[in-house]
């Protein structure tokens, strides 16, 4: 019998941040006597990189080198409140709080520099490399380090900032379901190419092509980490994993990683990503969080590709070889649908 190729498509959007709002994030920023900055949060880094993104957002807003900025987080004695790391809210909510805190700290930094250079603060700019100078007169400059030292020991001025970002809690209407679900949405469209063995029902993803719109890739490599890892998890959800293989019967639930199936290193799929950036007006530098949504389009795209390959409607997850084989048998054989979009 035969191996059939299939191609499937899906596209989605995703709400960024806790759905009904009411999920505040706070940030504190302060300078050391020699112009290094600490960003103090309560966010949790699960691997998504909130420490790294937070550091970049603070450095950009302050106008200082990123090497001079460090995030310290998740000590309830020192960090201000944050709702938590979930719902793709870290970048959006905490990012906005960091920008506000860093903006307040920057204002005082420029005021301190203005006093040193005897000019007005609005005339000053930062060059991002540790210097503050008069707009249009780079030679009239002072280093961030000298400014911080002067502020600390001569001016008696603190270079610090606070920031909070809160999307007000939205009610939900009991009769119409009216609500304000968040303020910005990420988007994705994805095409799966796969093969189906019509003798065993085995599905093997061959290629993923995707386009993810993430507002702004605040750190391209961290975004790629999410999109590659997320798409892998999407393949895993679509074809492999479940805590109840015979749901809703509870028997045979896996209790170890050997029996909780996930694609292995040998199943790693070539995934070509296009990143689109339409900045969300209320997001930090326009950046939306790509973390949660990147797996979502993969599941239906795989199901649609399996139908394209052999004509079996896969409407229950995971799409195991057994379900595909039973579908092929019920149709009296494979029913390839022909290449879409040809």
């Amino acid at each position, binding site marked *: 019998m035969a191996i059939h190729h299939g191609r499937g498509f899906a596209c989605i959007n995703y709400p960024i941040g806790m759905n009904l709002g009411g999920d505040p994030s706070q940030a504190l920023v302060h300078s050391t006597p020699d112009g290094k900055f600490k960003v103090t949060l309560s966010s949790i880094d699960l691997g998504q990189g909130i420490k790294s993104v937070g550091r970049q957002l603070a450095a950009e807003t302050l106008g200082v080198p990123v090497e001079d900025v460090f995030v310290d987080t998740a000590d309830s004695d020192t960090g201000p409140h944050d709702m938590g790391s979930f719902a793709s809210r870290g970048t959006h909510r905490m990012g906005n709080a960091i920008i506000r805190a860093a903006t307040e700290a920057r204002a005082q930094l420029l005021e301190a520099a203005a006093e040193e250079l005897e000019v007005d603060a609005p005339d000053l700019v930062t060059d991002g490399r540790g210097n503050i100078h008069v707009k249009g007169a780079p030679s009239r400059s002072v280093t961030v380090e000298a400014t911080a030292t002067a502020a600390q020991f001569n001016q008696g001025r603190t270079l610090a900032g606070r920031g909070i970002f809160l999307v007000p809690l939205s009610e939900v209407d009991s009769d119409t379901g009216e609500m304000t679900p968040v303020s910005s949405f990420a988007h994705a469209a994805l095409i799966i190419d796969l093969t189906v*063995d019509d003798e*065993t029902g085995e599905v093997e993803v061959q290629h993923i092509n995707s386009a993810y719109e993430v507002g702004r890739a605040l750190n391209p490599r961290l975004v790629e980490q999410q999109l590659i890892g997320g798409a892998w998890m999407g393949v895993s959800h679509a074809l492999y994993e479940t805590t109840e293989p015979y749901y809703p019967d509870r028997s*045979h639930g896996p209790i170890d990683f050997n*029996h909780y199936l996930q694609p*292995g290193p040998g199943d790693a799929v070539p995934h070509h990503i296009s990143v689109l950036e339409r900045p969300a007006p209320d997001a930090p530098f326009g950046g939306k969080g790509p973390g949660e949504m990147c797996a979502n389009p993969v599941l239906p795209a795989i199901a649609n590709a399996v139908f394209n390959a052999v004509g079996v409607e896969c409407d229950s997850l995971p799409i195991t*070889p*057994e379900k595909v*084989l039973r579908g092929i048998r019920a149709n009296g054989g494979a029913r390839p649908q022909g290449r879409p979009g040809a």
Partner: protein
Amino acid sequence: MLEVETYPTVGEAANAMDDQARFLGGGTLIMNRVNYGDRRFNRIVRTTDASLSEIRAEGDRLEVGAGVTMASIMASRDLEFLSSAARAVGGPAIRNMASVGGNLMAPHPYGDMAVALLALDAVVRMVRGEELSLEDFLARRNGVVRSLLIRRPQGDEFRFRKVSRVKPKGVSVMSMAAHLTRSAGRLSGVRIAYGAMAPTPVRVRAVENALEGVSLDHAGIAAALSAATEGLDPPDDPIASGWYRREVAPVHLRRLLLGEDAR
């Protein structure tokens, strides 16, 4: 509390065994149970007897110590015919630990090396020298094994294939081994074994009988394929259902016998 007793020779270790003790091979089975607080045993018995890790020729057979690991098999030129089965047992770390003797005791769906040895009609030599067929040993699965006696197959007579869902390493949907001996160009005295299709690795007599005297081609093996799961009741588990195993066994048996590449 749990006690550990170490003996210099496997004989002394065997004497110390009782139903509250477990014999420690590579640890991949027993230590898993220890970590999860299995209360069916409170003593671990082990030996530092180096002879258990030896591979020696004995007449026209090879004696493989029960302590020989999967990695040692893959590294051994004499046992090259077993390397595909050894590679099927866990990743590199597990293969440095999992022993041949341990593999004979592995619960469903593990035991791929035992499947290969079953098809090679290996003989089990117990610690006090008593010998029995691997098939008989698997029926009782107790006592301390000293070594296995294996007759090297000729040419490409021996075939092994593991079907799993995860690449490159996953737990068995099923594994199959075939020792395709011939006489006068026809199959004769063939041995077929399956893994993960029954409570333990199992010889499949119905298929062996259907292959007696046939030529190794589509026509010749047709009867064997239709008898692929005769007498077997493959289990449901998180990896696959009994229905699925029964339905695809003939496909994988055909691919094994005719050497079709496993996609």
